[in-house]
């Protein structure tokens, strides 16, 4: 490697908002008061919140400096496993900020909202086509709310058949949110173990599946980056006992145009538009977690439904079997819009290519690093691969140390210590938008770090060295929480 990606540059310290400013400043062009004052009852009037008074320049410098302490996908490679940190096209941001969309009130009559309704209607169609399912709702605000929606649909379906079941099967390679989403819907998650190939065998499912089990929540491809090859058999077992198959589709980026969930026994699944469909992650949201279902579950989808009649679009509230509403309005429209633009600019062939390249990149990293890092499941992976720190145990170097050292090389670390089935897991998801050169640099960085682990382990234990701050004291943060200044 000629020169490290990671370097140091001048960034500025910046105090907290309320440590700056001066009473009497304002960073807002206040409108003119054009009506007579009409004082509110003093009994109801407060003193006003204790906010600092800042000028517009104060505010702009503050957030510009803060932003420079962040590493984003636009800064560099961000191969956070399970999160699909792919490039966020800039044209999508432009479209979402068109005044016709950003200024649209959600309760306007349908006749005055045709543009938004058409986008949502068509996006539902695209997502059902990509998944091979029959219908979709865009209402869930994030993947986890999509999971909850899916569980509520499963619950409603069982109830409509006069049955009430108490359990749900959740494999150890499922996403972390699954058990709590199921529990929120009153289901008791029953854990099942994946086999020595890292996937679920039909036998373990048939051992636990019974008539008190509402179904299974399976992540496919799973969190080890492996396709659940026995999905058809598993679905048969679950269906034969009157259960439903929920698929966590957060990893859909691996199989667009390749596998169709609707044809392999999946009854309901969520997608994460902020993963597969390129909408930005925003430092932790907003996301969007649409849910796609097979015909049987359609009557239960949240209201309102978007319907089309003679070329006009409308919101339909009249669905007596619906589970109701997941949030006040229709979901994160601003996010859906970007996913819609993504699908329209990619088209069917490029979506398939995206999945192919995502899988190619992950397998390439797996092959290039498997002699360097321990690879617990050495078989073809999907869009992500999972290593561990087992080879570094003799050097007393952990996954955390290597992750922190990667920052000095100018990369965001992969997901670490997840999935739990692999001790010291290092979960790498490069996505299709990384070039071979960047991936090669990442591989070289990892090799150099593993070498450092042998020869200069303290370099890793003290890492990172080039960030704004060094390792932070998370113990004191949790013991004596300081959540507000």
């Amino acid at each position: 490697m000629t020169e490290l990606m990671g370097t140091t540059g001048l960034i500025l310290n910046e105090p907290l908002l309320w440590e700056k400013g001066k009473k009497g400043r304002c960073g807002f062009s206040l409108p003119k008061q054009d009506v007579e004052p009409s004082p509110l009852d003093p009994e109801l009037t407060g003193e006003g919140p204790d906010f600092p008074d800042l000028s517009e320049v104060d505010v702009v410098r503050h957030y510009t400096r803060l932003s420079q302490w962040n590493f984003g996908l636009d800064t560099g490679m961000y191969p956070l496993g399970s999160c699909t940190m792919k490039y966020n096209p800039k044209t999508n941001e432009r479209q979402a900020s068109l005044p016709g969309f950003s200024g649209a009130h959600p309760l306007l009559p349908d006749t005055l909202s045709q543009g938004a309704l058409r986008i949502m209607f068509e996006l539902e169609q695209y997502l059902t086509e990509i998944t091979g399912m029959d219908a979709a709702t865009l209402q869930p605000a994030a993947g986890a709310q999509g999971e909850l929606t899916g569980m509520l649909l499963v619950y409603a379906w069982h109830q409509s058949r006069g049955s009430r079941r108490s359990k749900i099967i959740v494999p150890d390679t499922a996403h972390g949110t699954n058990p709590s989403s199921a529990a929120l819907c009153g289901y008791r998650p029953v854990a099942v173990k994946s086999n020595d190939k890292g996937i679920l065998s039909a036998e373990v499912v048939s051992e636990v599946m019974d008539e008190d089990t509402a179904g299974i929540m399976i992540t496919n491809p799973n969190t080890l980056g492996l396709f659940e090859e026995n999905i058809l058999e598993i679905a048969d077992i679950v269906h034969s006992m009157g259960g439903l198959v929920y698929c966590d589709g957060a990893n859909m980026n691996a199989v667009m145009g390749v596998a169709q969930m609707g044809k392999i026994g999946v009854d309901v699944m969520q997608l994460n538009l902020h993963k597969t469909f390129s909408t930005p992650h925003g430092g932790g949201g907003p996301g969007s977690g649409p849910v796609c279902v097979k015909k049987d579950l359609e009557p239960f989808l949240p209201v309102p439904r978007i319907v089309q009649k003679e070329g006009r679009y409308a919101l339909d509230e009249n669905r007596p079997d619906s589970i109701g509403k997941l949030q006040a309005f229709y979901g994160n429209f601003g996010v859906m819009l970007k996913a819609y633009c993504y699908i329209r600019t990619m088209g069917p062939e490029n979506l398939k290519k995206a999945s192919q390249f995502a899988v190619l990149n992950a397998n390439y990293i797996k092959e290039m690093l498997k002699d360097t890092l321990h690879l617990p499941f050495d078989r073809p992976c999907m869009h992500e691969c999972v290593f561990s720190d087992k080879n570094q145990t003799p050097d007393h170097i952990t996954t955390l140390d290597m992750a922190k050292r990667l920052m000095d090389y100018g990369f965001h670390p992969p997901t670490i210590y997840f999935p739990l089935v692999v001790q010291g897991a290092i979960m790498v998801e490069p996505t299709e938008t990384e070039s071979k050169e960047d991936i090669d640099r990442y591989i070289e960085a990892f090799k150099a770090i593993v070498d450092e682990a042998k020869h200069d382990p303290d370099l890793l234990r003290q890492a990172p060295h080039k960030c704004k701050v060094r390792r932070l004291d998370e113990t004191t943060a949790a013991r004596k929480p300081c959540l507000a200044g």
Partner: protein
Amino acid sequence: MHYLPHTAEDIGSMLRVVGADTLDDLFSTIPDDCRLKADLDLPDPLTEWELNNHMEGLSCQMAVAPEYKLFMGAGSYEHFIPASISYLLGRSEFVTSYTPYQPEMSQGTLQAVYEYQTLAARLLGMEVATASHYDGATALTESLLMAIRITGRKRVAVSSLIHPLYRKTIRTYFEPSGYDVVELPYLENGTTDLGRVDELDDLAAVAVQSPNFFGCIEDLQKVGEKAHEKGAFFVPSFTEALAYGLLKNPGSYGADIACGEGQSLGIPLSYGGPALGMIATNKKYMRKLPGRLVGQTKDLDGRRGFVLTLATREQHIRREKATSNICTNNSLCALAAAMYMASLGRTGIRELARQNHDKAEYLKSQLKASGFNIPFDRPTFNEFVVEFPPGFEKTYERLLKKKIVPGLSISPFYPELANHYLLCVTETRSKEEMDELVRGLTIDNSKLRD
């Protein structure tokens, strides 16, 4: 495709490393009967320039300001958003990062969220606030679940003047767990009737909204006392966060959990989402809060820094016993709100809130003077209910054609209130526009009377 960097040469050399002949070979672990045999049936790709035309065409089919004059709020409010906020919020270091799992390279997001938590807590008069939730409806629902968890009780009393769509959300979440939701009726003055609370046992929380769905400011003192008498949590909620620039905050009335919608704080309407769910409470309940929290700490050299904290409450650690399943939340919206609160400052938010109130009062007085009935006499903030004469739908349609949106009909939610409309006036409406609305209403009104 310009988002996909691989050249044919790259693909060839990488396939060789992987040991596959073709891209299709990469999917060998997917059983044949799971494969999609045909191509996806989706529209052909658009160029960036074609997309611009397509999207501009669609956006023109939307009724928005400044062409349309909205007098509609009901949970989603049109407010001015300074260019500085849209500009700062577009910085890709904020937009293209994820949940700050690696604090050393996420201090920007972390400090900004910590500042948001602080300003949110100050706005609501509470000690701590969460990093963000999806929207006001889910924030209220999660607050009620939190009260249920802490008290170990299974019933909540919810004012019928809480936003109807919020109440629907609560019912959706509560359906499988069987928690009982009791709706409290409303009084003639447009506030919640607390009479039924006395009869209820096993009560985990009493929730109201202030200003409520009719725009009326609730007597939070009384609600708080009643809730606490029953040993229940007092949970005041809101849809218009800007109101607390002027009104006494929920904390000053002894709120246990204050929650609601922060869209007014610098977040575009965007057809209802993304928005900003806000939850705040006091320190003694912080370990029971749902959602992400950022805390202040120090690094190895003793410098101030910030981390995600109290993670043991969350889904990835506490699994099915977690305080919530939330993972991705609405972080960027919280950042917008922090930027907005910082831009206004104490002086600015006070003035802006006052203008909202005064303008709404002006329109109210003009409507009264024109003979329209204002059915609820409780003080309001920037929304209020007007009773229009029967047959008003025609006037409504006519005003829509003139690009004026004269509020929201509330009879679909309150069938007993036929011809009642909820009107909203924010700082974005001028006196002239209000006068034009009144003129438009009175012309037809006099015709109807004739």
